[in-house]
């Protein structure tokens, strides 16, 4: 879990991890992840939805499934649409969706190729209580299945409680780091908070 103030470098670090931005120095790798295999590419949820407004929810998921060589793209898209609770709206254009629904389709897109590494930039943005509970359960399942999840969050929440390691960064530098849970983890997540 990445914590830190606005502008501390969380998003930049996640974009470097997603290989969208090239690092000016050094190298970032995830042990066990094979970047050249389809599911070795990270699943990334950013501030933007990263899906097309002019396509329907289903068309978006099928598009990204096909691009990433997912077996039976239509079935995978249908499965994820049911998971994120958008199956009833599968034929609606994304531009007609609310903020929360957009976030759900963004998460579904990131999961479409069953990635072994997940990068989430404030994934709970726009989600209602039910959505946050669903996301927390989904993340727990992914972690149990052996997936690596790196996410940025502001403060404590149902999702931050899942963290096995918390790192607080400020101006691109680590200022607090813990592998422990409970109070120690909370202290890192809220480090420096007013």
């Amino acid at each position, binding site marked *: 879990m990445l914590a830190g103030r606005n502008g501390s470098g969380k998003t930049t670090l996640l*974009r470097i991890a*997603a*290989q*969208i*931005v*090239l690092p000016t120095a050094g190298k970032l790798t995830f042990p066990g992840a094979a970047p050249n295999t*389809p599911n070795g*590419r*990270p699943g*990334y949820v*950013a*501030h*933007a*939805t*990263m*899906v*097309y*407004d*002019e*396509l329907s929810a289903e*068309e978006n998921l099928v*598009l*990204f499934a*096909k*691009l*990433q*060589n997912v077996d039976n793209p239509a079935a995978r898209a249908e499965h994820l649409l049911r998971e994120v609770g958008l199956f009833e709206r599968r034929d609606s254009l994304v531009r007609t969706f609310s903020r929360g629904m957009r976030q759900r389709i963004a998460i579904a*897109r990131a999961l479409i*190729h069953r990635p072994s590494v997940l990068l989430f930039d404030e994934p709970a943005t726009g989600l209602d209580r039910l959505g946050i509970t669903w996301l927390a359960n989904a993340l727990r399942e992914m972690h149990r299945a052996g997936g690596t999840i790196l996410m940025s969050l502001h403060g404590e929440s149902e999702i931050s409680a899942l963290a096995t390691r918390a790192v607080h960064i400020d101006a691109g530098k680590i200022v607090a780091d813990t592998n422990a849970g409970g109070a120690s983890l909370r202290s890192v997540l809220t480090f420096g908070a007013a």
Partner: protein
Amino acid sequence: MSLRTNTSVLLGKELRTEFRSRELLTTTCVFIIIVLVLFSFTVNPGTEQARQFAPGLLWLAILFAASLMFQSCFLREQVNDTLSSLRLAVSDAFSIFLAKLAANTLFLLLTEIVMLPIFAVFYNIPVLPNLPVLVLVLFVGSLGIAITGTAISAISAQARMRELLLPLLLLPLLTPVLVVSSIVTAGLLDRDPVVQWKGIAFLGVFDLIFLTALWLFGQYFLEE
């Protein structure tokens, strides 16, 4: 996944989004018709003067319409940061360019299909006698414009003054295409038509060189 499959999937997406909104095609067609009609007021239809200047005006109109079309080519991908999701999804970034290039060429040719009869009527120049060669010239010329335009669109989309930067970079680069296409088209529309195969070959070589450059350096245009 192969380059061909990725390209065809992305081309399908380009066509679907455009035919759903029809923003680009409608705007470009209306623009090119306005330009041709306005230019037609400056020459007497059917005269030698019209035959002399009309091919140049035709290609200028195509060039202006194309630069309008390319403005939104990569800009559209920035609305929801979909360019990043494409870069994460495809194994070869060249497929993004190939799909956009194919879509741009197709849209440009569709605009020309609408434009050609209007051009023939307003300038009183028969285009049917040498139509197959004229279509070939329009294709190789439009392909050159689309290749260069797609590349420049990717570069300028990340710049601050992108609306100004695209025509500033594109128009000088396309001067050879404009000059040669106009000369070859003038030869075809002449009272004694001549097919200038050397000019057509030049356009083909131009396309090949710029496509190779796009293949070699395209991925760097997409980096943040």
